[in-house]
């Protein structure tokens, strides 16, 4: 329990450091939000007035502490471009990305783990060889390409969904789900392939260890050894990878959101960077940092549950 509190403290500190770095980064890169909003034809007086209004004239640290104070009290500021509170703006985006990530993650687990188990169990067999070749191919296809391929095959040829025709959950839940399956597959496929390969390798490594021999000497079957002994040991490195994957997916898959025209976080982030809409960018990056830290913490905790050796300090 003390460990969790300590970790949460570190988490808050990390978030603050991340936000400070971002502020400095924005200060260093050129680009004036006021010019961006009003256009290059605007008079200097109007630009100056808008800068004053947005609070851009204050020194860097004043601006930072103003933002930090808002952040800690739950106020993320107002979007320069949309003139909407950032919180309301992102509140509609995060659930979309969140759903896509969780959906993809479930697919990764459902495809990757059984495949890894099967190929690890039957390593060297014909099925294993075929699966590993397919794996290699799938792993080397970038998501934007598989996204386009999926849109083309399932959308244009098989007419299973309308590419680009995103339907919000609030409008029609079934339409939303049946649309989201395809981007989720595009995100999940390469990661599922990696999970399978990683688990297979890990199983083969564990299968050569002494405790496996002990397990056989007690009269275990091959499956008995695999499921009662090897799997849990072999799963540990895979857990780290799955955690990283989930964090990445929650942070948003930019390419897939673009290809499938999904109004998620990544799309918003990219647009806002182009618009120099700093409050939105800041909030989005804070979300990403938050997600990565939380998932890391969760993986750490899970590790401690699964592997008693790590719990010993």
């Amino acid at each position, binding site marked *: 329990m003390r460990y969790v509190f300590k970790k949460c403290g570190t988490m808050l500190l990390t978030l603050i450091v991340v936000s400070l770095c971002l502020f400095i980064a924005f200060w260093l890169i050129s680009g004036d939000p006021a010019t961006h909003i009003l256009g290059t034809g605007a008079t200097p007086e109007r630009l100056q007035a808008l800068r004053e209004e947005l609070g851009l004239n204050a020194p860097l640290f004043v601006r930072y502490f103003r933002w930090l104070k808002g952040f800690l009290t739950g106020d993320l500021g107002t979007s320069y471009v949309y003139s909407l509170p950032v919180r309301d703006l992102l509140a509609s985006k995060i659930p979309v990305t969140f759903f896509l990530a969780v959906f993809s993650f479930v697919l990764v687990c459902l495809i990757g783990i059984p495949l890894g188990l099967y190929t690890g169990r039957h390593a060297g067999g014909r099925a294993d060889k075929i699966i590993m070749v397919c794996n290699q191919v799938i792993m080397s296809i970038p998501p934007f390409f598989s996204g386009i391929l999926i849109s083309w095959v399932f959308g244009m040829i098989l007419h299973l969904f309308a590419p680009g025709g995103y339907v919000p959950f609030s409008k029609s839940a079934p339409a939303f789900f049946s649309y989201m399956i395809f981007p989720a597959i595009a995100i999940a496929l390469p990661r599922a392939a990696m999970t399978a390969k990683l688990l297979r390798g890990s199983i083969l490594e564990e299968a050569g260890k002494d405790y496996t021999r*002990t397990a056989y*000497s*007690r*009269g275990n079957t091959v499956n008995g050894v695999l499921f009662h002994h090897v799997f849990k040991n072999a799963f540990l490195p895979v857990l780290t990878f799955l955690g990283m994957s989930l964090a990445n997916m929650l942070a948003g898959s930019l390419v897939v959101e673009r290809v499938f025209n999904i109004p998620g976080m990544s799309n918003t982030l990219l647009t806002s960077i182009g618009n120099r809409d700093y409050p939105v960018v800041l909030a989005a990056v804070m979300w990403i940092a938050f997600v990565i830290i939380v998932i890391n913490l969760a993986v750490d905790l899970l590790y401690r549950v699964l*592997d008693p*050796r790590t719990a010993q300090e």
Partner: protein
Amino acid sequence: MDRKEEVILEVNHLTIEFHDHDTPERVVDDVNFVLHKQEILGIVGESGSGKSMSALAIAGLLKRHALSLSGEILFDGTDLLTCDRERLRSYQGDEISMIFQEPMTSLNPLQRIGHQMEECLRIHHKEMTKKERYDRAIRTMTAVGLDDAEKLYRMYPHELSGGMRQRVMIGAATIARPKILIADEPTTALDVTIQAQIIALLRKVNVKRETAILFISHDLSLVRQLCHKVIVMQKGRIVESGITEEVFEHPEQPYTQALIEAIPKVEL
């Protein structure tokens, strides 16, 4: 030892060859011996003499397809080299058990001691209830010299010392009361005082549980302390065998003499 003894294991013309090179490599060559009930038989030899391979073959732990095995290993009227897998598995852990050289890595790091102690019972004695298994595990742990068995039952291997882990291995291997315990260099990885304790424990298992022990070692002084009979192996062949004292007092082969002379003597 002149009474008619019951033979429980008979090894006839055991030959093991590796085929991963162009010319087959014969690591065990025409090995013959018998193990009697409640006997401790030592197999000594240098590394590479084929003693561990023979032990693994008897325990059914060699991959049959990876190397060629010939001859027969008769246990309970069954040839362990040719019988079907299921039959072999029904003996493993229940009638024939094995402990290994490395107690540090021979236990599953993620399973509690108690769970590993009970594994042979879970596999071979499905009729036992959870409570019965637990009681047996606690009794066995106490019998192999693990104090505070209830507490140890819930601990993990990394929390135990090497000597304790080897005791756990011995307990787990003998919990189902096997007829044969194969001990492959069980004390090599342990320091000397622990070594002596483990040897004493094996002797106790042999007497109390009436378990025959096949004791594989390169350490002749340990073999002399523990074993009733001894086999000396060199390059896959048996070069000498007999009652331990006789072999040690009157070694016939120069190889055996050299091995015995290599034992460091403590002079005061």
